[in-house]
């Protein structure tokens, strides 16, 4: 069951939560809505679920227009950030709730609850109450409860946001496995890019009520469409400079930029990820920058080196793999040269340029 959203707009008073948003989640896919808080991702999810109405636009499940259907008719499974388990009901009754309100026979309810308890690996905890469970267990109950009504799609709002790092990691992998088993079209909201990239087939990056970029995790990570996406997807070094004649001039750094072959000089911003910077003891023509090493943290899978360019007042983060770090034998205070392996240049709101 695919989900299609067309031109959704939603206002809360003067605040525009969603501004003409369109997207598609193919049948059986696992899609992440990624964005900072206030970007409209949760509102979008709630409109897809029918918990919130849109001012304008359409929501389709497969080819069925569900824009004006109640959550009940839409048959969605929704998992809330803070679980929202029924505190006065046992785990069993929590999971059974959706079937109880649909007046399913007890035998069917019983069989389904058992099946789901097994699926979320909580056998034997049916008689416990939510307050007697750990955070991770509660979230799995919430998921089982959402799945109990045989939903056509599954929607999760920051499902792991309230859990500690280790449990979050486990549940992420488990959610991915579960998805591969049951192939339910799933949309989940997160502000954690790592989570989105690890779990999802497709990532939709949102900002201020519109979609900034969507694509596979690989596409989005390797080819961020905008400075915002670049910045949001993790640690990044920013250089301000100009572009002209196929070159980007970023302070002392000159790098080739064939996308802009024109003679007229224009302002540009360049982004380089820490792992895309290398350190040398000697300058490499005009494509390296002299800096001083201010801090080294070799603990972890990469050595995190912090350098500072006095000339441009610019602090940069460099991630070296441990092999390279061992080979360089740098220490704090050393004068070295950084050179980017890969640079992404963005020109602010470039009007169409006529050659």
């Amino acid at each position, binding site marked *: 069951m695919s989900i299609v959203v067309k031109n959704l707009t939603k206002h809360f008073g003067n605040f525009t939560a969603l501004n003409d948003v369109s997207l598609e989640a193919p049948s059986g896919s696992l899609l992440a809505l990624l964005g900072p808080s206030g970007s409209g991702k949760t509102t979008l999810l709630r409109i897809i679920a029918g918990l919130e109405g849109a001012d304008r636009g359409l929501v389709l499940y497969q080819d069925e227009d569900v824009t004006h259907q109640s959550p009940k008719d839409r048959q969605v*499974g929704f998992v809330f950030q803070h679980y929202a*388990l029924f505190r006065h009901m046992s785990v069993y009754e929590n999971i059974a*709730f959706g079937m109880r*309100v649909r007046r399913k026979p007890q035998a069917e309810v019983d069989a389904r609850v058992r099946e789901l308890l097994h699926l979320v690996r909580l056998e034997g905890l049916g008689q416990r109450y939510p*307050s007697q469970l750990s*955070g991770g267990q509660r979230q799995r109950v919430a998921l089982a409860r959402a799945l109990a009504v045989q939903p056509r799609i599954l929607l999760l709002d920051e499902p792991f946001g309230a859990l500690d790092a280790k449990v979050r990691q486990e549940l992420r992998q488990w959610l991915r496995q579960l998805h591969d088993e049951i192939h339910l079209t799933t949309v989940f909201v997160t502000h954690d890019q790592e989570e989105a990239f690890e779990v999802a087939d497709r990532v939709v990056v949102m900002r201020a009520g519109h979609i900034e970029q969507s694509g596979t995790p690989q596409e989005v990570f390797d080819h961020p469409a905008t400075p915002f996406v670049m910045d949001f997807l993790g640690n990044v070094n920013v250089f301000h400079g100009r572009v002209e004649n196929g070159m980007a001039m970023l302070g002392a750094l000159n790098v080739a930029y064939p996308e802009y072959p024109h003679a007229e000089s224009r302002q540009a911003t360049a982004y380089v990820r820490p792992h895309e910077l290398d350190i040398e003891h000697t300058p490499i023509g005009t494509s390296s920058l002299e800096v001083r090493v201010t801090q080294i943290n070799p603990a972890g899978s990469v050595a995190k080196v912090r350098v500072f360019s006095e000339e441009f007042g610019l602090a940069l983060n460099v991630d070296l793999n441990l092999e390279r770090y061992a080979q360089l034998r740098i220490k704090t205070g050393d004068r070295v040269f950084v050179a980017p392996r890969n640079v992404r240049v963005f020109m602010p709101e470039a009007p169409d340029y006529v050659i």
Partner: protein
Amino acid sequence: MPTEIEQVTMHGVPSHLPPVVSVSKTHGRAAQQDPAWLRYSLIGTAMAIIGLLIIVPVVSVFYQAFAAGPGVYWKNLTGDSDTRHSIYLTFLVVPVSVAANVVFGVAAAWAITRFRFPGRTLLTTLIDLPFAISPVVAGLMFLLLFGMQGYFGPWLREHHIKIAFALPALILVTTFVTLPFVARELIPVMEAIGSDEEIAAISLGANGWQMFWRVTVPNIKWGLLYGVILCNARAMGEFGAVYVVSGHIAGQTDTMPLRVEKLFQEYNNPGSFAVASLLTSLALVTLFIKIVLERKTQQELKEAAEPQAST
């Protein structure tokens, strides 16, 4: 009786969430380090005042009522048809008023905690108005509306509808003076619990009624019962407002508190104290239920205040 009611009122209105942590033991110890004479004189003063102002009067009510033995007591309570009617009337007016307040209280608390609308703060304030207005004034206000000379008086008389000096007026004013109890009890509880579970119920396919009865009511039941108990206590003891609108007609519009006063005025002390002792017993029962429920509501608030935090 009024003194006790005031205390109930003050206590029964948690204006905000309870602090998450209870008073720790170290605080208690600091107080115990005060010199012994200070401790004992403070405890002694408190005990003496409680004894003088509460224990002695309450005991004396029962003593006076039973002075001539249980047989006479029973006769005083049941022998007089006007007294019997006053008991019947109180047991009729109070449940109706309480029921009306449950409906109003739940609706008001729901509106205030679940919706954002213009005038929300004003509504919250207006709910408390009956606490601020003297019951006598409340009674007068209703007479002004429904009495013979009142705004609706002529119309009501034309259509042979009797409100003032009759049962409807008693129920109306009793409902008015007890209006805030249930709502004020529920607002903090519902605020603390939030609407997450209700939205979850909707997302699982429940309709409004199913959500209300299966999710909301179980979550607020102790707070609701507590409100009902307070409301009930106040309704039973209400004197001023009822006095004004009832016309004080023995055997027709006299409720128990009015009957106590009338018997006393007629120098029928044994009869007066018999009815008073019945009212007091009801108050004591209420107080006991209140204590039990108070613990339950505190628990409800506490659980809501620690919303299923991750462990």
